[in-house]
């Protein structure tokens, strides 16, 4: 009965009742254009593959995608 199990997992709830996603501007080097103004957002903890697949989906919704090295350019 003295069992005490702690399951801990990190969660970032910034959609409801949490920190809101903040978009900020910064100079960024895309492979096609260097040192240009970008809109950037931070996504803590989520896995890169997960974010990458969602990003592709978002861009696909906007039109066709062309891959340029590590950039996804359209």
């Amino acid at each position: 009965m003295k069992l005490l199990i702690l399951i801990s997992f990190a969660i970032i709830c910034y959609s409801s009742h949490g920190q809101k996603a903040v978009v900020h501007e910064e100079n960024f080097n895309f492979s096609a254009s260097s040192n240009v103004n970008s809109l950037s957002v931070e996504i803590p903890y989520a896995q890169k593959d997960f974010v990458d697949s969602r990003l592709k989906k978002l861009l696909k919704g906007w039109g066709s995608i062309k891959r340029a090295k590590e950039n996804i350019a359209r």
Partner: protein
Amino acid sequence: MVEIKDMGKMPFNVFARLTEGNNEIISVHFGFDFGGSFLSKREHPEKYKIMESKIVDFASSIVKDWINSELKNEEKILNQLEKDQKDLEILVEGHTDTDKMKSKSHPVDNWELSVLRATSVVKIMLANSKMDPTTVSASGRSQFAPIDLDNKSKNRRIEVVLIPKLDELFEIINN
């Protein structure tokens, strides 16, 4: 070249790139090229507002879906434990980092934020499982139980604590 609703009829190029920073944070960078001029708040305030909103929605939906997928994994464990351990109570604790809240509406401070964070998770857990709500409670510990003093993002978290039902324990002891 793309055309996005609300952004006018002039098509433009979009660049996107992921970078991985310290503390397990992934940044997504978008560049919107209007033929040599990249979208900026100063030069394109209206268009900036539209794309800012789309990016916020995008980031929020990723986090929400990621939380749901993580919770589903946790639920499998919880459901198994619930079968094995009928004498457990489940406490969901919300935690925040040390950043001060700047909102005039709720949540006004980290105490409220941590409690709301915990209740949000409890609602998702109950909505996605057959857990008995009478065994679940939510609480908040604000910023005062950090797990890493050097990494604020790790302190924004939820802990699910499984506790033996103490009244049953006392009953056994008394008998």
